């Protein structure tokens, strides 16, 4: 069993009286770091070559203190301990100005990156010869070799099939670039010019970050900045711990959720979380335990979860809309202990494949919502995992030449309803954008027939779950092989407090035609040819609250807007609509006998999700 009890060097609050950074300067330093981060991200977006980075925007940045503790992160709860893996190979004290470190090694980084496509670049920042901070840029590279174009495939059975592995490496040694390492890396990509351009952009972004943080150090002084970072950390940690204490009474709280399958005929796999709050020596201790989670999968749905992730996610939840707070290692530090079991779905043994870990990661976030909810908190209902469709094949280009293409299309889903608002319709995740229809059709051999929301996919409730997306393509490629990744079909996203579960995803080839076929939701090797129609529908989010409590005007707007059908309005919401108008008398009658509800809903009302 893996026990993580030392979440980092800055675990304890600095004594308030010892602060050298006053509240005004703290806010100013925070603003300056935020600006530096925004500038690094803008540079990446404008200069990267692959559509994955420049259009989909799969990249993040962060700043760490001189000990490598994340002080200012991105608003994404998937980061764990980024710097530790580098420190294990290169002692921080041996680092010099101009150094740049690089890795994508999932197992070698204990899940700091969780699939090999993600490249991490990390650089130390010095002032007056002393190491004062680190900056990071992170981006998903479109192809790094491996079993199929795009490097990730539901077919993978070990991580060696998921592209080249880069252990923590010194890419630049005091200004001297290790060109050989880069050459080897790019040579392993099916699209080396994209790899090269993206790496150049990633390096330029870190370089810019080092410059900006140096300026911040010059302006405020190293001690003031160090203290500011320490305060940002302790502030987040304090806030998260106090909110945890408000949510979780003493004792152990459990929640179980599941992913459907690993794409190799196995599943479902249960994710079992327990959070214990106990009192030791007069202090609260929060222990997060995922050891009861099912064994690892043969297929690539394993999620090597860095022990920092649960705290990061809970931290982000508790920070909420408070813009004066920062998402950082204060979240992970709020938990006193994280327990994972080696050989489980969330801590697999090397070299288990990880490429499709996204669906497990998204289910993990939903299960954390469940954990908060069973303890009496107000977290959202469950969401579907975002969907990936990877198409690789050939087409005849304008010059009549057969050309190879790779399209990894990320498709949004519906998010869970909140106790105060509907779930978000049709979004992928934080920061990541779609490929617009017009962009797709200019660059790839497909023509879109439909791109809209899936009616009735949002779980009914006082607050409706978000709706999923339908994307229907006509294939203009000569031939292609499709990988598809959809989860939450057997185990749809649950609703809560009377809200119902969300709709499920589905992939159909040639719908309505004689040769119509439905594809397995997590599968690769699906062959399509020119003229085929591919219809992908994604799942929605769970609802919140009794559907009869949803104002009839909101139900009507949903019906007129194509989010809810007339039938569902009547059946689930008890709202009778005739000719585009609410029939108030019939609605009153229909809503008079309220159907009884239980705590959760997954296809039916249940006391607990198991």
């Amino acid at each position, binding site marked *: 069993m893996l026990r993580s009890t030392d979440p980092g060097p800055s675990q304890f609050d600095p004594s308030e009286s010892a602060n050298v950074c006053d509240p005004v300067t703290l806010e100013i330093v925070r603003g300056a770091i935020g600006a530096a981060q925004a500038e690094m991200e803008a540079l990446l977006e404008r200069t990267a070559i692959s559509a994955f980075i*420049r259009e989909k925007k799969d990249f993040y940045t962060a700043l760490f203190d001189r000990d490598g503790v994340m002080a200012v992160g991105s608003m994404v709860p998937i980061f764990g301990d980024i710097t530790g893996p580098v420190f294990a190979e290169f002692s921080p004290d041996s680092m010099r100005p101009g150094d740049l470190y690089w890795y994508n090694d999932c197992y070698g980084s204990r899940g700091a990156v969780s699939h090999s496509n993600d490249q991490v670049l990390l650089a130390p920042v010095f002032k007056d010869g002393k190491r004062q901070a680190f900056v990071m840029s992170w981006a998903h590279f479109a192809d790094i070799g491996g079993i199929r174009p795009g490097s990730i495939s539901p077919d993978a059975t070990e991580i060696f099939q998921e592209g080249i592995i880069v252990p923590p490496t010194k890419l630049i040694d005091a200004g001297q670039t290790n060109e050989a390492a880069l050459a080897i890396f790019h040579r392993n990509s099916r699209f080396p010019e994209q790899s090269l351009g993206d790496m150049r952009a990633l390096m330029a972004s870190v370089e810019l970050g080092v410059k900006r943080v140096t300026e911040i150090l010059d302006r405020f002084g190293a001690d003031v900045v160090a203290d500011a970072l320490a305060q940002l950390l302790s502030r987040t940690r304090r806030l998260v711990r106090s909110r945890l204490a408000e949510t979780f009474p003493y004792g152990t709280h459990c929640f179980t959720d599941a992913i459907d399958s690993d794409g190799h005929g196995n599943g479902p796999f249960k994710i079992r979380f327990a959070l214990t709050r106990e009192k030791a020596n007069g202090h609260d201790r929060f222990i997060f335990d995922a050891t009861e989670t099912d064994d690892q999968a043969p297929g690539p749905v394993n999620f090597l979860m860095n022990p920092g992730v649960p705290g990061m996610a809970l931290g982000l939840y508790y920070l909420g809309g408070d813009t004066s707070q920062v998402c950082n290692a204060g979240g992970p530090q709020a938990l006193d202990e994280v327990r994972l079991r080696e050989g489980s779905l969330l801590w697999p043994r090397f070299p288990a494949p990880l490429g499709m870990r996204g669906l497990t990661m998204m289910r993990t976030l939903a299960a954390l919502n469940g954990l908060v909810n069973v303890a009496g908190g107000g977290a959202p209902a469950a969401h579907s995992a975002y969907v990936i469709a990877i198409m690789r094949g050939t087409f005849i280009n304008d010059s009549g030449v057969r050309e190879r293409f790779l399209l990894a299309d990320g498709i949004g889903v519906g998010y869970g309803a909140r106790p105060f608002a509907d779930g978000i319709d049709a979004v992928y995740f934080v920061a990541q954008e779609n490929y617009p229809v017009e962009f797709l059709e200019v660059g790839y051999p497909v023509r879109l027939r439909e791109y809209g929301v899936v009616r009735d996919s949002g779980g009914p409730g006082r607050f409706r779950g978000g709706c999923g997306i339908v994307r229907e393509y006509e294939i203009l490629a000569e031939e292609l092989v499709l990988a598809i990744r959809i989860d939450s079909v057997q185990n749809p996203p649950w609703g809560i407090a009377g809200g119902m579960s969300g709709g499920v995803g589905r992939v159909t080839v040639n719908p309505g035609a004689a040769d119509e076929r439905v594809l397995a939701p997590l599968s690769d090797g699906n062959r399509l040819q020119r003229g085929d129609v591919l219809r992908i529908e994604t799942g929605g989010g769970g609802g919140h609250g009794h559907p009869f409590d949803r104002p009839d005007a909101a139900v009507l707007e949903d019906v*007129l807007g194509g989010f809810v059908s007339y039938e569902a309005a009547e059946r689930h919401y008890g709202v009778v609509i005739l000719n585009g108008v609410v029939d108030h008398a019939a609605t009153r009658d229909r809503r008079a006998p309220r159907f009884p509800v239980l705590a959760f809903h997954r296809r039916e009302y249940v006391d607990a999700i198991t």
Partner: protein
Amino acid sequence: MLSPKSPLSVAVDIGGTFTDIALLDRTTGQVWRTKTPSTPADPSKAFLTGINLALSMADRSAGALTQVLHGTTVATNMILEGKGAPTALVTTRGFRHVLAIGRQDIPRKANLYTWIKPKRPVPPSRIVEIDERIDPGGIVRLSLDEKSVAEAAEALRAMQVKAVAVCLLHAFANPAHERRVVAILREALPDVAVTSSTDILPVVREYERSLTTVLNATVMPGVTTYIGRLEQRLKTKGVEAPLLLMQSNGGVAGSSTIRQAPALTALSGPAAGVVGARAIAAACGIRDLITVDIGGTSADICLIKDGRIGLTQSGRIGDWPLPLPMVDMVTIGAGGGSIADVADSTLTVGPRSAGARPGPAAYGHGGDLATVTDAHVVLGHLPDRLLDGGMALDVAAARGVVADRVAEPLGLSVEAAARGILAIVDNHMVGAVRVVSVERGHDPRDFTLVPFGGAGPLHGCALATLLGISRIMIPPAPGVLCADGLLAADLKAEFNRTLPKAGLIDFDVANGIFAELEAEAGSWFEAEGVLPEVRLSNRVALLRYHGQGGELAVAWGGTKEETEAAFASQHLALYGFTLDSPVELITLRVEATGRTAKQPVTMLSERAAAPTAGYKTVQFEMGGVDVPVFDRKQLGAGQKLAGPVILTQLDTTTLVLPGWSGVVHPSGAILLTRDAGVPQ
């Protein structure tokens, strides 16, 4: 007609409280300025009252006017407040949720647990699909089914909308279907404003284009009515001169252009201010400047290099991307009304604002939150009365809110708390200045800072000190620069052609397209009545390395090599590297300008020393100092000033910090320089 024969221009800027008018005889350079209370219920009333006032001051007749220039916030406010006309969108079948989906992202800085997707300006229930399909090469894959358009027209009629936006897939590659749909709908719905994406933004990416077309449609009825009323009133008063309106790109255009594309005026007001600042700077011989326009709720920051105002096509307004050409400025939620608040022993300032009502506590309208203005009052930066004595400040109320809301929770003195509030808001603005300068490859220390707006000159010295800037120019009337901007603005339009497929530069093909665009520009010059001798057009290419997501605008050189070299050096300056990859051409652009006669600026007479209007105790960090106060009207050209000094005038207050000294320029502007040896 932009005629040099009898050039008499009037500029009208309508503010929330006052309407400012400036009348200029371009032959003599004489200017008459006046103001009249605004008439919010029907702004055209004050518009005409003001023009008449100015004409009678100058003893000229309405018929003598050759230009009526106007900056309007009608479109801006309708977009920001979501109060445009009820609008529908017509789109290609299969894509009715184009706005609902957007870019399918939760914004990078948002929290996924609490974020709520902003309500679109048109709900999905008012989006109608029609049958047609064009591909990216402009080839029709499914002909337009006119029956489906007729059905759409019926549906739109039933919705009782006032405006309809038409945005079909790939219309930028072939506008035929959009044009036909517009024609059918106009005939079927004669009382409804109908507009298409082809008319406003023919570029790739359906969400941004649909949204822009929708925003254009929602403001169209309101702007059309507004312009119609102005023109009607002008006509009845005997004014024959054309009405020219300020666009977001800093140029003016005739009312017929704006009726077609009212969204071009979304940032009319801030753009006018920037153009005004540039005009006054030019009169002082300053060509490199950074403008900071600070109002009650926001600050607009813009960099002008070599007299040129940068433009961008990736601007935003409120929650929405608006990829129309606009002055490249950064807007942040920091102004005089920005609220300071303490939570969890953290002090934040803005973006929430107390607005005009209740406004700062010091204004005495019941404001009970601490604002930036209250912090200035606590520290003694403002005179006891504002608006030339017309409005008393409630110092005790300002001290009260700063004490209760900030000083006590943080355990600071009231003065220290006030200084903290200002330090934070100044730093927000410094961040924005860095975005337009450092991030664009410019060193702010090479520029003159030009603070304006009602609150700008209070912050000028502090901002310059933080940025290492050693020169400041305070315009003669910093609160009402828009009228000056209108008088100085050129007529401007852009003609773009996005290539169906990005590719390597074919110099001859590109030159052919440029010639076509220049022909379009020529027709526009004719329509706007721009005389040949003041016409100017520039060729610009939008370039990127093969595969990149962002383009750079590069002046089209004499050869392919020259153009590519210019691109490479710009890429290096901005991003720190170049690539060996081929350079791709995305868009060709012709910028057409009808240059306006540069108006001479009123010159002050020399006057060595004005008497002080009194003293004010200012709480600096080192303690209280009695600072002389001057009435700016009393200052003559050549007068020297040594900080600390406070300058009062109707529309603003200027705070000159210790370590800064200045001189009054003959134009009326004040030029400040940082004394040698003063630490940055």
